[in-house]
């Protein structure tokens, strides 16, 4: 029973984290048909920005420790929006309409550039920003102890998921965006400014990635390579759920999160294996992912 609860709670925490990490990836793919290999780098940028700001706050600059949460959010917003808009404007804008697989390679090049850019800006020594993590304390139930910060992640990812859903389904701009997703040519004919939509979507997607990084920073040591590890996890989640679907990313995150938690508790040697195992299994049964739509070729 204890193991079951542990799997459930750990799984939910991990699923929330996975959803945060992959939401931006799926949003960008859904609208722009770009599978952004550099998404992990935005995660890393958010983590570094958050960690260095929080580090500065606690190394004597700051007063109220609870402000550090705002700093994490602020760091993610600024870093994600600035870098996102800059890259959309300077690079991707010239590439729209190219092959999807070519865009994968373009964003792979972007990843290589950003990985080293991060090292040049922040160096190679790890950053720690553990204070916001410890500040919230721990809670115990059924003989298990969990960090409140981790449980808070569940709330944050619910807010992010619900927020995205609201924007897409309940606002005018969101409806236009869905028109773009559904049929780009018709949307252009309707007078939708697709270019602007793309720019905003990309920046929102990268900011979501940065947010995931900033919120993860207090729980890890922020060091080179974290983005490269994260991107393959995000891929797995998004592919399982169906690329471009936010509901799919949520479902994929829950499935992968719970499976991994089960593996960690029951068969730790399978931990790394299960994530891709789930992915391969889902795809062999449903190639388009759980919530994906099939495309039929016309001749």
């Amino acid at each position, binding site marked *: 029973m204890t193991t079951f609860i542990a799997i459930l709670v750990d799984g939910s925490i991990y699923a929330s984290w996975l959803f945060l990490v992959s939401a931006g990836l799926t949003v960008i793919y859904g609208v722009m048909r770009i*599978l952004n290999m550099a998404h992990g780098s935005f995660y890393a940028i958010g983590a570094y920005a958050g960690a260095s700001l929080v580090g500065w706050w606690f190394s004597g600059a700051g007063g109220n420790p609870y402000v550090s949460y705002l700093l994490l959010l602020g760091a993610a917003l600024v870093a994600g929006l600035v870098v996102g808009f800059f890259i959309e404007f300077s*690079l991707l804008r*010239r590439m729209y309409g190219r092959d*999807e*697989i*070519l865009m*994968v*390679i*373009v964003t*792979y*090049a*972007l*990843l*290589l*550039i*950003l*990985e*080293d*850019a991060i*090292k*040049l800006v922040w160096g*190679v020594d790890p950053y720690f920003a553990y204070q916001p993590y410890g500040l919230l304390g721990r809670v115990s139930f059924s003989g298990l102890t969990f960090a409140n910060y981790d449980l808070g992640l569940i709330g944050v990812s619910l807010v992010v998921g619900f927020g995205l859903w609201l924007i897409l389904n309940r606002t005018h701009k969101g409806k236009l965006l869905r028109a773009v997703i559904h049929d780009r040519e018709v949307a252009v004919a309707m007078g939708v400014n697709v270019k602007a939509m793309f720019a905003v979507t990309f920046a929102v997607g990268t900011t979501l990635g940065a947010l995931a990084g900033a919120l993860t920073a207090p729980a890890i040591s922020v060091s080179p390579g974290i983005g*490269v590890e994260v991107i*393959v996890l995000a*891929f*797995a989640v998004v*592919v399982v759920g169906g*690329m471009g679907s936010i509901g799919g990313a949520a479902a994929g995150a829950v499935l992968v999160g719970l499976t991994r938690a089960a593996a960690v508790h029951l068969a730790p*040697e*399978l*931990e*790394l*294996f299960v994530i*891709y*195992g789930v*992915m*391969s299994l889902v*795809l*062999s049964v449903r*190639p388009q992912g759980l919530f994906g739509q099939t495309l039929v*070729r016309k*001749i």
Partner: protein
Amino acid sequence: MMRVDRTEAWLLGAGLALALGALVLPSWLTFLLTIAFAKGLVVQGVVIQMRAGLVSFGQGLYYCIGGYTVGVGGQMVGVHDAFALLLLSMAAAAAVAMVLGLLLTRYREIFFAMLTLAFSMILYGILSKSQSLGSTDGFNVRAVTALGWAPGAGGKMFVYVLTCGCAAVAAVLLHRLSKSSVGHVCEAIRENEVRVEYLGVSPRWMLYATYVLAAATSALGGGLIGMATGHVDPEMAYWTTSGEFIFIALLGGISHVAAPFLAATLFSTVRTYAIQFVPHSWQMILGFVLLGIIIFLPKGLWSLFRRTKAEARA
């Protein structure tokens, strides 16, 4: 029909000349070339698939299988003969590819890319957790013999000559493949799969054969690298390793069979110096070069050579 054409004669000649170079070239250079040509073989696997329209982001899977087969064969099974080990590598890779190919050939474009990536990450995960194989540290590969002869101190030299030989023979065969009916049908599949089906052949089985062949070719390269460096580790299957192969493939382009070898040589050379002098900008350089190729030389560096040739003729 099995006559050697001009390109093939060139390839064999170059292979022989380079192998003979072992007598005069300094050992740091032969080592660099060993690594470069072996990597070139791995990249050939990526290129064969690209010609058929498939981009594998997980070719490291077969590179790693090749390396580990050589390592395990020597360390645990007691096979020390270089030729037997390389054949085993290719057979192991082909066997895995025959199974995975059944699933993978149902996918195209980014789905194929992502799934190949996932499979290589599965191997990475398994190897990282396998203590008998040294977990994340990997293990050392024993020195090899050749048909009963132990090269001893000349081991590195032997592997170099072996690599030159394998590369030349593979290049000739792959050149022949690219000119063959199947080679052209694969290009046709890249261009228009439905039409190929309507001409009377199954695109899926053609891609399956291509995938298995690519796996064996890449495993050959992986096996040679294992012998040359004397060490294998799970990093060989990590997805960034596969990314490197894609980089080299695009650097050279897919239009000529020699391109992957030249690109791999350029890559290994630049890397040797870049890691020494600008260790934290090496990937950034790669990234910018990759963008430059995509934007300015979509057919790879080889197209530069072709263009000057065409201009010279005009």
